[in-house]
């Protein structure tokens, strides 16, 4: 037996209470991991955004469109911007499933000739891509969306328009797979030409934004400035930014919710610390007489404080480890797989980041240690005779 062994053995004084505390800590860690993984999955698009891709939008907001002719300045029809490798354009269409309206997915009308040159991380079988290019009413969808609605190649699909009202009929010509984490696996891609030709005269020839890849990612800022300079003297000015900045702007509306979730995860840890503190304090109170015996035998107050701190840290470690152990099957395998299949637009990749696991375990141990500080300090101030007189 060692001093640290004695500290750990102390958790056996009241097994029921220890087990309940460890389980309580584990559940708090599970909740923390779930929330943090949700935040991480939500922000995955930002974190994994391509470094060499730029987005050019209306200077005021991405909601306002740009004239289609602007794209000609990118693709060589009317000019070329030094450093830009390839460009494409698209419109946010905002279609919905006619009967499952609450299940969001991104619907975009894209330039079929250039889109997949700029987004090579979306892999479409060549025959399916060729068929899609041939069919103006064709659509290519992400694998997660196909799973979510049970759609497959050859299916006829009718979606309900919101930004562009009416019923929109498409035929699924292909399913893309994502080869990078930055890709939303639940997009519904249609032909921009089909959309444009279906619109009244006054709404035609407008595009949502231009996406461009650049030769050298380190020159992205200079190239962005060059793009915007090109349209400075036009009636509509542009704002060019990295894909990451664009994604962050797009998610900006959700920042309040994300911040609230962030706070909730910390509150959960706070509650966990109070539970641990209470358990440790109860144990210390019950064992006052025992500490008196140890002091009489020659143990010093610092030993008593160390025993209590060690006990707290060990309970925190047990709770944290158990929390992580149950988090992986519940969060990553169970809930995570379900979210990826059914809410792929929001959570394309729902897995627990290593940093979250490490943080959860670290916080469990650190907060348990913090919770044990006050009882440890109190116990270290015990008078040996008073402690020996205390019963229970």
């Amino acid at each position, binding site marked *: *037996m*060692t*001093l640290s062994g*004695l500290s750990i*053995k*102390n958790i*056996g*004084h009241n097994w029921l209470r220890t087990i309940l505390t460890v389980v309580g800590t584990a559940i708090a860690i599970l909740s923390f991991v779930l929330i943090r993984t949700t935040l991480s999955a939500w922000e995955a698009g930002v974190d994994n955004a391509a470094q060499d891709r730029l987005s050019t939008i209306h200077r005021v907001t991405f909601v306002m469109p740009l004239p289609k002719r602007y794209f000609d300045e990118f693709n060589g029809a009317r000019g070329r911007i030094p450093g830009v490798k390839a460009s494409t354009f698209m419109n946010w269409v905002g279609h919905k499933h006619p009967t499952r309206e609450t299940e969001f997915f991104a619907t975009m009308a894209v330039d079929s000739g250039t889109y997949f040159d700029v987004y090579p991380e979306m892999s479409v079988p060549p025959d399916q891509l060729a068929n899609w290019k041939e069919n103006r009413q064709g659509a290519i969808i992400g694998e997660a969306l196909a799973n979510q609605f049970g759609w497959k190649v050859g299916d006829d699909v009718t979606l309900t328009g919101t930004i562009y009202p009416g019923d929109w009929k498409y035929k699924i010509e292909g399913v893309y797979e994502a080869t990078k984490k930055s890709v939303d696996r639940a997009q519904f891609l249609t032909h921009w030409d089909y959309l444009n030709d279906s619109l009244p005269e006054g709404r035609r020839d407008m595009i949502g934004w231009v996406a461009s890849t650049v030769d050298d990612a380190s020159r992205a800022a200079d190239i962005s400035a060059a793009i915007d300079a090109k349209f400075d003297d036009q009636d509509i000015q542009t704002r060019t930014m990295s894909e990451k900045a664009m994604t962050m702007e797009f998610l900006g509306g959700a920042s309040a919710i994300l911040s609230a979730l962030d706070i909730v995860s910390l509150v959960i840890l706070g509650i966990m610390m109070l539970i641990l503190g209470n358990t440790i304090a109860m144990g210390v109170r019950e064992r006052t*007489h*025992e500490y008196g*015996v*140890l*002091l*009489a*035998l*020659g*143990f*010093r*107050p610092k030993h008593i404080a160390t025993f209590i701190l060690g006990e707290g840290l060990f309970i925190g470690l047990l709770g944290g480890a158990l929390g992580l152990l149950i988090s992986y099957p519940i969060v990553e395998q169970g809930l995570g797989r379900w979210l990826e299949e059914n809410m792929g637009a929001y959570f394309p990749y729902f897995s627990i980041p290593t940093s979250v696991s490490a943080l959860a375990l670290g916080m469990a141990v650190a907060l348990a240690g913090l919770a044990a500080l006050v009882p440890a300090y109190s116990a270290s101030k015990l008078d*040996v*005779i008073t402690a*020996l007189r205390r019963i229970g």
Partner: protein
Amino acid sequence: MSEEATSAETSKASAKASDTTTAKRSPIIVCRKIVRSFWRAKERLDVLDELDLEIAEGSFEALMGPSGSGKTTLLNLIAGLDRPTSGTLTVAGTEVSAMGDAALARWRSQTIGFVFQHFNLIPVLTALENVELPLLLTSLGSSERKKRAQIALRVVGLEDRMHHRPQQLSGGQEQRVGIARAIVHDPKIIVADEPTGELDRKSADEVLHLLERLNKEFDKTILMVTHDPAAAERATVLRKLDKGKLL
């Protein structure tokens, strides 16, 4: 009343007899004008009142007296758990009344072995681990600590119970484990506060026999507080304390 008088006479006679037998040995415990006072509200209460006492090395002394007479207070002072309000107290050549907390704790861990009335074993530890406890404060290695704890348990006749927890032992066995814990670090002095108070007659006899052996065979100085006349008779010296003074 007559019983008390008889007891007091026995005490004095025993003390004299003991003084004769231990006259050649120097005192290991020396109390000079020891006062220990407590404050209750604004009233000062002298639990020990200018007490003088000498206990010879190697003696087995019993201390009796009514409740509140100051027996446990005196025991606590001698064991280094408390300090006198005034007076000097020298135990095993060290003036404990002048020591700081840390030094006193270290001194206690080397010089004193405790036997408690309620055994006070740690319930989550086995008998062996309970006995090993005082050795955790030494620089001994793990195997040496274990070996010494096993020897101590052999001395008290509980080698076959070393892996049992306190709740798996009888009261008498628990107290014998308590005694093994008190001797494992080879202290000069063993202080026992009502060591038979929780035991039946048979178990009490076994514990007292063990204390006698420790005194005779291992030359331990034993100071035992007791209310039990039968226990007190086993000591070589019997002292009575009343109202903070030795009778």
